[in-house]
């Protein structure tokens, strides 16, 4: 080899060593591993539609992050735990994760009640906490600020506002609406947002009925009969999981879907079981996305990884909980990287929390920005569509997709969601 070639080779080799070294070597003060508590419903009725898919998605994404060198060069180790149980159990588990397992961060929580119970404890113990699937808008709209708590997905206001806007887009002459929702906070909040938005956007709309079956009732013949008698133009429901599939099945069997239009504000893995003709949302840009979003490389990577590890039938869509948990991990990674860059060494929890505020990052659900809630709450667009049965493929898919931009369906910074609706959506960009 000529002298010149040898020197170039040497330079190239050392350059390569430096670069890979820079990727592999974690900053000063880094722990040997980054333990993260992952909380989800592993038992009970919420485990099927949300908990287990979310946990699985977290696991596969953490594997991917580790393949790419981990967070800041440190391997991520998840500690999975079950969210099931009353508040005292959930809080005890949180404390155990923080003080016994000594995790650097906790992510998870699907139930809104837990998302309200955990933040004060997170603040007390100064543990970085990323709420990953719950819907209540109260976390950052009521009570004091939570410096260590963040939510990397949109709250449920996008579902109700999105549903209302979609209904008005599809049925501009709607005159009567009714609601059938599970009698608990999620059902109440969902209906409140939807009905208020409808009445604001079309003041002459009349609410003919609001039905409140018990959660997990399983038997809706009386409610369906009443709806068949009343024949509202649109029926709104926030049912999920088994209840949603049951209601869809019973409604279809009795022809409710022929007499009225049913809109559901949250679907995901249950799309394959729902009756065609239903208007559905998916809690953000997850199952129902714009054509552009469908080409997003991270999204395609996530879906292919998920398919590889857990299998995905051609008619199956991934639960929104799964996307949300991946968003949480992406947010966590982005925050850590930003904090490491700022500190020059391994950051403290405070530094990561400071970096997390107002952060923006990419995810399989697109570009996520923590734009409201003092920089702690993310906003996302809301996608809605009509279920269509594709007889050629024998599966359900969508038609008439509308994606409402984030600034259209989220309140602006500093304003409470219900106030924003009542004031006529100031600042909304649709």
């Amino acid at each position, binding site marked *: 080899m000529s002298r010149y070639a040898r020197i170039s080779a040497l330079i190239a080799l050392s350059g390569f060593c430096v670069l890979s070294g820079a990727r592999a070597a974690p900053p000063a003060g880094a722990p040997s591993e980054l333990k993260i508590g992952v909380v989800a419903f592993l*038992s009970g009725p919420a485990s*099927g*539609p949300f908990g287990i898919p979310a946990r699985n998605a977290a696991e596969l994404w953490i594997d991917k992050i580790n393949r790419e060198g981990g967070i800041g060069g440190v391997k991520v180790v998840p500690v999975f735990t079950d969210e099931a149980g009353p508040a005292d159990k959930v809080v005890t588990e949180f404390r155990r994760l923080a003080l016994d397992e000594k995790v650097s961060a906790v992510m998870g929580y699907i139930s809104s009640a837990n998302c309200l119970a955990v933040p004060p404890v997170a603040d007390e113990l100064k543990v970085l906490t990323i709420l990953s699937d719950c819907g209540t808008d109260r976390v950052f709209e009521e009570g004091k600020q939570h410096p260590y708590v963040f939510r990397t997905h949109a709250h449920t206001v996008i579902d109700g506002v999105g549903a209302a806007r979609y209904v008005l887009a599809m049925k501009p002459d709607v005159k009567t609406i009714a609601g059938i929702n599970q009698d608990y906070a999620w059902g109440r909040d969902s209906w409140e947002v939807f009905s208020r938005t409808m009445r604001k956007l079309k003041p002459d709309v009349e609410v003919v009925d609001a039905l409140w079956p018990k959660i997990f009732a399983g038997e809706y013949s*009386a409610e369906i009969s009443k709806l068949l008698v009343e024949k509202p133009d649109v029926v709104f429901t926030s049912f999920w999981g088994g209840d949603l*599939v049951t209601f869809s099945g019973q409604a279809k069997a009795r022809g409710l879907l022929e007499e009225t239009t049913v809109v559901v504000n949250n679907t995901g*893995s249950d799309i394959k079981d729902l009756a065609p003709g239903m208007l559905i949302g998916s809690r953000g840009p997850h199952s129902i996305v714009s054509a552009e979003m469908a080409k997003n490389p991270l999204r395609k990577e996530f879906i292919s990884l998920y398919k590889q590890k857990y299998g995905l039938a051609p008619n199956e869509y991934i639960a929104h909980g799964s996307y949300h948990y991946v968003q949480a991990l992406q947010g966590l990674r982005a925050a850590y990287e930003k904090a490491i860059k700022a500190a020059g060494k391994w950051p403290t929890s405070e530094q990561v929390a400071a970096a997390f505020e107002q952060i923006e990052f990419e995810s399989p659900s697109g570009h996520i920005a923590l734009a409201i809630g003092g920089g702690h709450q993310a906003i996302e667009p809301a996608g809605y569509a009509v279920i269509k049965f594709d007889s050629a493929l024998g599966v359900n898919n969508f038609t008439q997709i509308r994606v409402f931009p984030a600034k259209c369906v989220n309140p602006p910074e500093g304003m409470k969601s219900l106030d924003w609706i009542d004031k006529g959506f100031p600042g909304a960009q649709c």
Partner: protein
Amino acid sequence: MRLLLVVGLDGLTYASWLFLVSAGLTFTYGVLRVLNLAHGNLYALGAYLGATLVLHYAATGSTPALTYALLLIAALVIGAVVGPLIERFFLRRVYSRDEEVQLLLTFSISLILEDVVKLVWGVTPIFADLPYTYLGRVRLGGVNYAWYPFLLAAIALAIGGLLWLVVTRTRLGKILTSVISDREVSLTLGINVPRVYTLAFTAGAVLAALGGALTAPMFSLVPGVGADVLVTSFAVIAIGGLGSIGGAALGSLLVGMARSFAVYKFPELDLFVIYLIMALVLLFRPQGFFGEIEVRRI
């Protein structure tokens, strides 16, 4: 008038659902004086197995008419296998102990079965609606009704009638009545009481599983489906009187009609109705409608 018809029909369908779901529980209590807290899990097992059989069968594309038989078979299998297992290996050992201990035993079995169901069938909802949709619908009172719940009502009636017949008209029924009234005297009469207990518990298990299998086509099965059913069954049989099949029927009708009426007039009360009725009935008639007051032994 039309409203009355609609409320009545809905009340009837819900009542038959309730009866199918709670008949097993009251029967077991009637004979063994044990409130089987694993009842909800037996229900779930019957439902899951029935649904699985139907889904597998439906995939083969054969005639849907046979799916009803599959549901029956699933219930019989669960009842006949799990029933004797629980009774002979666990319950039998605690007959001599306090009622509380027996309750706790069935409670611990229910905890175990809950996870067994989850381990075997996973957490993905299962909806085997072919038997439900196959029968189509009928228009009554200007409202569409599915035929299937009416089939269930007929089956509920048949089961109630069958149980009554067996208990009052057959030799087996006489033996059962004897054991219920006085265990010791029955023993002295030469009746194989332990075997009667096993039989009765198994029958109760079959009824529970049957309730699950027959109602499975109507809704999506998820983990935890048994727990809800348990509390509902409690309430119904408490109203009707523990141990009384007729009471379970009456309790089911009462709650079914009340809930149906509430949905129309007071939808906010939906959640409460069953517990309010239970509390009211128990206050004025603690033994329920047809329950028997136990004579205290001095």
